[in-house]
């Protein structure tokens, strides 16, 4: 009896412990099912439009294929990559050099402009108004931005009109190989100024006001305040803008398509992403286009990682 009673108590005790555990397990199981249900549309999307395309891009870069029939894909090894870097290929120069110059030029111009404007805006009234003005290009389609500037650069356009009014001769901005790339760079910088200013003004707002007051008491001039207080304290925001704009610059080609069509004159404004686009959709050369895309991808990745590393290191001691 005693033993049986003991056993009975034991079973009951175990049952009482087991029931909530089972409920918890069932609850966890249900939560997992619900979670994956909530995630299903996104995961399905990433599988079809991210994973599959990445595999596809690698496969295509190692193949020869000019058609639309999937059965015609022929293996080609690294031929596509070899052709890109072969002697006489235009991919290294001028295309990749243009890409780097384009990104560097854009970052240099936009960053300088944004630092100056952001610094000055903080001392003005109606800051929101100014920021909104500078922001207009960002919400505008690249087709509008590109075309307006394209026609402003024409001999009968606004820019040459201003030059003429100042007694200077007209410049064939987009038609002259020497000026075409810088002309597009200016527009890209113009279009990206707004977001850079926004991020930098946010960074400036985080600088304690007492720093400026202390500097003023010490009799520091505006230039000293700018170089000794503003710039060093702004470094994290500056690096962030620098990294993101540089990556954007390396990848962009929509503005170039709109302004110079095929990257002309000659290859003067041709960049890697545009080269890829044309190889694929103009010449139907999917293999070498995919190879070009992957080369640019690796370039962007390496530069990004290098900048992130720099970002972190500077962030740590700064």
């Amino acid at each position, binding site marked *: 009896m005693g033993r049986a009673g003991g056993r009975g108590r034991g079973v009951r005790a175990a049952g009482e412990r087991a029931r909530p555990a089972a409920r918890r397990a069932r609850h966890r199981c249900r*939560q997992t099912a619900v979670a994956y249900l909530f995630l299903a549309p996104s995961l399905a999307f990433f599988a*079809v*439009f991210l994973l599959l395309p990445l595999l596809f891009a690698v496969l295509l870069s190692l193949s020869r294929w000019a058609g639309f029939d999937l059965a015609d894909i022929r293996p080609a090894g690294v031929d596509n990559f070899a052709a890109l870097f072969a002697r006489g290929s235009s991919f290294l120069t001028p295309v990749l050099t243009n890409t780097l110059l384009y990104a560097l030029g854009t970052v240099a111009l936009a960053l300088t402009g944004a630092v100056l404007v952001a610094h000055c805006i903080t001392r003005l009234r109606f800051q929101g108004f100014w920021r909104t003005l500078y922001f207009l290009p960002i919400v505008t*389609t690249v087709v*509008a931005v590109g075309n307006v500037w394209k026609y402003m650069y024409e001999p009968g356009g606004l820019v040459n009109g201003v030059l003429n009014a100042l007694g200077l001769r007209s410049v064939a901005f987009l038609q002259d190989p020497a000026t075409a790339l810088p002309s597009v760079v200016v527009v890209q910088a113009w279009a990206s100024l707004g*977001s850079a200013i926004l991020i930098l003004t946010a960074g400036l707002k985080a600088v304690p006001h007492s720093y400026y007051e202390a500097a*003023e008491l010490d009799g520091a001039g505006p230039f000293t305040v700018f170089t000794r207080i503003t710039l060093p304290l702004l470094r994290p925001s500056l690096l962030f803008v620098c990294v*993101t704009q540089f990556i954007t610059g390396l990848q962009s080609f929509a503005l170039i398509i709109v302004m110079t069509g095929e990257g002309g004159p000659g290859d003067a404004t041709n960049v890697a992403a545009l080269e890829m686009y044309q190889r*694929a959709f103009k010449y139907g050369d999917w293999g070498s286009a995919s190879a070009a895309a992957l080369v640019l991808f690796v370039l962007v990745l390496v530069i990004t990682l290098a900048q992130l590393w720099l970002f972190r290191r500077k962030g740590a001691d700064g």
Partner: protein
Amino acid sequence: MRRRGRVPWLSYLLVGAGAVVTVVPFLDMLLTSFKGPGEYGRLPYRFLPEAFDLSNYREAFVRLNLPLLFRNSVVATAVITGSVLLTSSLAGYALAKLRFPGRDLIFRLVLATMMFPPFVFFIPHFLILVHWPLAGGNGPLGDGGAGLTVSIAALVMPFLVSGFGIFLMRQFIVSVPDEMLEAARIDGAGEFTVWWRIVVPQTRPVAVTLALLTFVGAWNEYIWALLVSTANPRLMTLPVGIQTLQSYLDPHRMVPVMMAGLMLSVLPVLLMFLLLQKHYIRGVMLSGLK
């Protein structure tokens, strides 16, 4: 005290000059759109039109199939924005508030999706849509027809889910108090009800921001729309359609007509931005991407 009263002339000058450089192209677009035939390109350059000629707008209407372009742009933008909001909210809730195996891995995957540059995907996406099985005359293996490039689905498919959107939503939903969710669950609400009745209303501010960012991005998208409409002109959106104007008009007449068309395509977004700029600016601050 003395300093506060001093007007920062140099700053006004610099910011003002920069603002002029920013705004003048927009003004030039507006003013050129009113210039009469033969007025553009005449030397010396005149900023103001001789007479405010509205015929360029009429010409843009005649030359372009504007009802089709507007319909494509509006439908594509609406579908993309709706889908991104819905999928981001659902996935964001799961990643923020539900406990399940693989959560960290999936969250890391979502973060990784933001790192891939879009141009890597143009070719594969296009081929995937062309070879979409059992669509547009394709067989089960995806050959034989034009696939999804026959329908407006082609314009929206690659943009239906946004890694950034999921990330943004997840970060916001994390801050919704667990007690609110627990209270609803104790009252017998299922996870779907919890999401719809508690989470969705709580996340309205971030949803407005995400909707605006997505709307502006989708409305202004150019390269993908260009690609898809090269395969099927019925899929032209406003930016693509207006760009085609330059191919069939002579320059002096064409430039003002193009500017009129551009004004039509830019105005909806500019107005929306001016009305809701606070939300949009917050979005850009959060993303730092554009």
